């Protein structure tokens, strides 16, 4: 099925061409002439990046061939319709149950000696074996995952517009979160209400972890049946996806009046987040941001809580996937202007248990631009009720 590219706007097509050019540069560096992006059911970001359409099916692929054509392979009629409507793919092929012959037939036409496969490492065993068999001995298969991660790291103006729009619904989602908090409410109903408000605002998807309680809380997870109590610190990481782009807010809110420990905890996390933000500019590394955040904890006597026993990352990049290159010490990825990331020094301390605070930003030449307008403060239902 051939797609009418006139359906896509001029700016869309310019964005598509920009991406193809970036990928081609990456392919050249690898000595490859074509890219096959694999979309596992839980890692569709490369496919999304190439076709600009939401994919719901179990399996998807996009082939960028040496003629700069994008051919999408999808497993559902609904995916076909969305990919066609987006107008980025030159052709959309419906994969047939029980067979991937259509895919392999196209791959056999690919010239050149190297095929880069985005998410080669996630290809199911049977499929990977068949791919090698089909391409050997003419074409070597190489991993294109790093190439795609690198291409996606720097956002264009077109992408930043979408990140800003996602930021607006993220702000609204947090507002809804605070509105619904009240003693006696079970955790999972908070998620249900916030999720509904995000979807009503146009979110395609949302990832949301939370935790409620006191200083015994060690991390955030999916919600349970625990009911909120006065003085609970309710933490969440809200991560809506709008028009393909994920953004995130990390905040904590108190049911009722904050305790002194919760206030002290917030002060610590605000200082650490700001320290991370203060070093952001074009050319900063993920390591340097993490170091700046961790230095605050060390200075205040909480350095041990920056280890992997207590925290996972000190932030991460965002884009068509919600958890891109991590902000951790040892990650020396250089962030270009246009990179989008969240700086969040989330971890446990004895002050008030697990605490979360973070804002998404985009890197600029001399600093950063915040992508949210939500205040950086310790929220409380008492204050909201005033």
């Amino acid at each position: 099925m051939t797609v009418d590219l006139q359906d896509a706007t001029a700016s869309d097509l310019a964005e598509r061409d920009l991406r193809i050019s970036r990928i081609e540069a990456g392919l050249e560096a690898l000595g490859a002439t074509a890219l096959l992006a694999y979309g596992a059911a839980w890692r569709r970001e490369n496919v999304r990046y190439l076709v600009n359409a939401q994919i719901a099916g179990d399996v998807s692929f996009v082939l960028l061939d040496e003629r700069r054509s994008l051919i999408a392979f999808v497993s559902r009629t609904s995916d076909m319709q969305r990919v066609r409507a987006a107008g980025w793919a030159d052709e959309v092929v419906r994969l047939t149950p029980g067979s991937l012959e259509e895919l392999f037939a196209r791959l056999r036409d690919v010239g050149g000696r190297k095929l880069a496969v985005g998410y080669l490492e996630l290809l199911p065993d049977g499929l990977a074996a068949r791919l090698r068999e089909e391409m050997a001995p003419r074409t070597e298969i190489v991993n294109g995952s790093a190439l795609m991660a690198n291409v996606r790291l720097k956002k264009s103006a077109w992408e930043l517009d979408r990140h800003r729009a996602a930021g607006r619904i993220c702000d609204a989602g947090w507002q809804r979160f605070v509105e619904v908090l009240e003693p006696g409410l079970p955790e999972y109903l908070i998620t249900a209400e916030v999720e509904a408000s995000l979807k009503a605002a146009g979110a395609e998807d949302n990832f949301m972890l939370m935790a409620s309680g006191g200083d015994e809380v060690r991390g955030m997870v999916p919600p349970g049946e625990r009911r909120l109590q006065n003085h609970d610190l309710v933490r969440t990481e809200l991560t809506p996806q709008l028009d393909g782009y994920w953004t995130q807010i990390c905040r904590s809110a108190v049911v009722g009046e904050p305790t002194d420990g919760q206030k002290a905890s917030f002060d610590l996390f605000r200082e650490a987040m700001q320290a991370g933000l203060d070093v952001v500019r074009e050319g900063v590394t993920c390591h340097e941001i993490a170091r700046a955040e961790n230095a605050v904890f060390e200075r205040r006597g909480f350095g041990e809580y920056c280890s992997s026993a207590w925290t996972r990352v000190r932030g991460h990049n965002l884009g068509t996937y919600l958890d891109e290159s991590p902000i951790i010490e040892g990650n020396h990825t250089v962030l270009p202007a246009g990179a989008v990331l969240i700086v969040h020094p989330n971890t446990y301390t004895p002050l008030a248990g697990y605490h979360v605070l973070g804002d998404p930003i985009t890197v600029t030449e001399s600093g950063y631009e915040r992508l949210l307008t939500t205040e950086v403060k310790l929220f409380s239902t008492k204050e909201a009720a005033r």
Partner: protein
Amino acid sequence: MKRGLVKAALDIYPMAEWSRRLDEVQQAMDSRGLDWALVYGDVSASDDISYLTNICVYWNEGVLAVPRTGKPEFVTKLSARVLTWMKRVSVVDSFHSTPQLGKRLADVVGTDSRVAIVDAGRWPASLLEDTTASVGRELERVDQLISSLRATPAEDEAARLRSLGAELGRAWEASDTPGEVELALRRAGCVDVLIDDDAGNTDISAQFGHLWVRSARSTTSLAQLAKDALALAAEGLRADVTGPQIAARLDEVPAFRHSGQDLRIHVSLGPVVGGDLSVAQAAQAGSASLLSIDVSDGTTTARVADTYLIADDGAESLTGGSDERVAAMGAQQ
């Protein structure tokens, strides 16, 4: 990413039921002479792991290592700080957090044991290679060790499926938008809700534990035709019937015959979730299956689907949402 209610294992089933499930798998392993069975799951497909343990792989990946005797261990890329919660909601005591799954699995299974990869075709090839290299010997392959056991829900599971189906039916009837359906399902305690909404067709899947129901509704100009086709197709649904056989039955009806016309009707019968590309197989007595109909005239497509519990002499719609059945479900609760 799963973000709905995760209930504790013992709030869903008594320990005896979790032990029964494990015993059944371990007996199957014993009969094959296996010391360990390794079960892979990621956030998009981890129902085997959930069935045995109530572990919710809400994000990322992990492997459940099931020994021939004793309790399973879970090796995951999820960070260590969430393992306390996983322990609290599951029936597993031993967890390992590591980015190097293969290496840690090798430590768990030790030397000189017979190890099987369950459903190897679904494992990421790189993880399978890494695990094989780390274990340092050839691994056996066993398909459907757990999925075959859970394919036919036990009586209490069937009751839960009916309740879940009734929730989905009620949500459809009481809501004007897919978002409202989702809200109703999340309020009802579903751990996951998947919505595929496009061009007048809405396909919703709802999960509780390892159990799923799914239905699709259409508002396109071909919706009534698709609905009629689904109703007729469902009349022929019973054990040992295949999708192509149902399609042939539809083809005998003039209104649904597509030869010589622009209308195309596609019938699909398969697993409730994860079956986009699965090969057509006969419906199994006692199992839950998704029957779906796509009607297309080349420009418009209508898609309707429901989840059915298959019996020898027919099939019970779990998501049809008739008022009588929904009322009956409500009375049961």
